[in-house]
């Protein structure tokens, strides 16, 4: 007993205790739910078996049921579109802004900081604001588009099944721009200035310098930002809940929202866990690639 107290006070027991507490917490509230999720996805879990510990085992039936749902195809492609389009635009706009604010002018870093206001706001509030911006009859976006002559008529952003998904994507791009911009700015700042100066002396134009210096030197950063983008986009739930709730008729539904709908709206909990298991596996694979790549870059 004395020995245990001494090692906690003054030895490696101290390290093990500090590390162990946090890890134990994460095992109980993160790792165990994942395993439990996998088990539930192989059982029938609904309102009747919710509290029971002894549920019927159905094998891969739930997975089969998800894929045989008629909307599964729509939701799969919606999720792909949601992730790819969000990332392409977040990244290119974020990169453009990072390059712009990298230039030397008064207030550059202050203005860049203001962009982060979009990132710190609760996504549900951002969704509420965009819902109002997108409003069909009195929305300011429709007003701007029609008065600039870009759109002939009002677009019913959130109730037209052909555009609802794009409305959600636009709002998500807005949310993601600051994060992309800040991370890429850090990368840009770490490129030594004299590399550019040398290239300029050799007669390389602005575009040539971007292509042959900035892009190659930013490769690691871009990789990290893209994988973080995939992860964050697949976490996006609040925005969809505020804007369209997956509708109309699942036209803007994506996998993470679909999973939640199964569990909390139709109470087909085992279907919800099956979708959730597939998505968690995907997210973890992306995260593993990301972590490996960043740890190779900075082996400290």
């Amino acid at each position, binding site marked *: 007993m004395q020995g245990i107290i001494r090692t906690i006070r003054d030895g490696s027991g101290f*390290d093990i205790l500090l590390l162990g507490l*946090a890890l134990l917490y994460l095992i109980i509230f993160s790792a165990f739910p994942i395993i439990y999720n996998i088990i539930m996805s192989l059982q029938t879990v609904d309102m009747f078996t919710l509290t029971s510990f002894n549920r019927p085992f159905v094998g891969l039936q739930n997975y089969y049921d998800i894929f045989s749902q008629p909307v599964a195809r729509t939701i799969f492609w919606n999720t792909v579109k949601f992730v790819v389009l969000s990332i392409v635009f977040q990244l290119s706009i974020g990169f453009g802004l990072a390059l712009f604010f990298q230039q030397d002018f008064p207030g550059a870093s202050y*203005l860049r900081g203001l962009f982060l206001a979009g990132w*710190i*706001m609760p996504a549900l*509030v951002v969704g509420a604001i965009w819902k*109002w911006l997108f409003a069909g009859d009195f929305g300011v976006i429709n007003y701007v588009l029609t008065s600039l002559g870009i759109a002939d008529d009002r677009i019913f952003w959130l109730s037209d099944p052909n555009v609802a998904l794009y409305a959600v994507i636009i709002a998500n791009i807005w949310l993601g721009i600051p994060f992309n911009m*800040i991370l890429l700015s850090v990368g840009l700042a770490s490129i030594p200035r004299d590399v550019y100066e040398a290239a300029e002396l050799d007669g390389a134009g602005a575009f040539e310098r971007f292509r042959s210096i900035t892009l190659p030197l930013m490769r690691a950063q871009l990789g990290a930002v893209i994988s973080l983008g995939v992860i964050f986009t697949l976490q996006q739930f609040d925005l969809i809940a505020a804007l369209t709730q997956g509708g109309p008729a699942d036209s803007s539904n994506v996998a993470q929202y679909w999973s939640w709908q199964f569990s909390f709206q139709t109470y087909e909990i085992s279907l919800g866990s099956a979708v959730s298991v597939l998505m968690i596996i995907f997210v973890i694979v992306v995260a593993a690639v990301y*972590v490996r790549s960043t740890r190779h870059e*900075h082996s400290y």
Partner: protein
Amino acid sequence: MKRYVLLILGLAMTAIYLFPLYWMYLTALKSSTEIFQYPPTFWPSDTQWNFLEVWKSRDMGRYIWNSLLIATGVTILATTLGTGCAYVLSRVRNVWIEIALFAILMMQVLPSSLMVTPIFVMFNQIGLLASPRIAVILAQTAKVLPLYIVLCRATFVQVPRELEEAALVDGSSRIGAFFHIMLPLARNGILVTSVLIFLQSFGEYVYARSLIAKNELQTATVGLQTFMGPNANDWNGIMTYAAIYVTPILIVFMLLQRRIVSGLTAGALK
């Protein structure tokens, strides 16, 4: 000259980006007839100050109180569990630590909307849903703890090892050195990271919506969502609610902006 052209361009881009925020405040200040004017006005013609009304009629005090309670609980739990863990991860290096760090980085990315299904069933079975706010605190802590550890670890890495070793040579115990040397030196990083997870938990939605059944225990995000309902047209009130809710977040953020940015980028890229 060129610098001022750039400044004007920069201001224009920032203004376009922040337009949604401007529109929120503007709608909150407009009268309920003015918001349905078409073409819309870009400056309120008849400014209304209905903040107090919305606060009372939507019972915002209770919602915000629940959000604060949950955010505070999460922050206390995460800092208590995470700080020591971050310290050990920054000091000890072996295969096991590498594995632990990798696992923590993986747990950082789990989306709440996917984790909520097993957490709901599990909490239901052990009876935790009877105290739903505690359930949300526990679930949300699991969500933010890995991020807290990663960011805090980056702070501890920057504290020179020699300072701790000197204290140990002087006869201080490990616990003593941790509390008297390491914690004070890493204080700023710990504080900023705590503020960050506090703000994140203050805006939490998925767990509150899914684990809390009673309306009087709900958070401000869920309150806003119910306000928006299916046929919402009180946009004036909704934007007032949103403005009341996010203004403190924005103020805290603007005050700590520089520190949060540097902490965040250190954690994400190193």
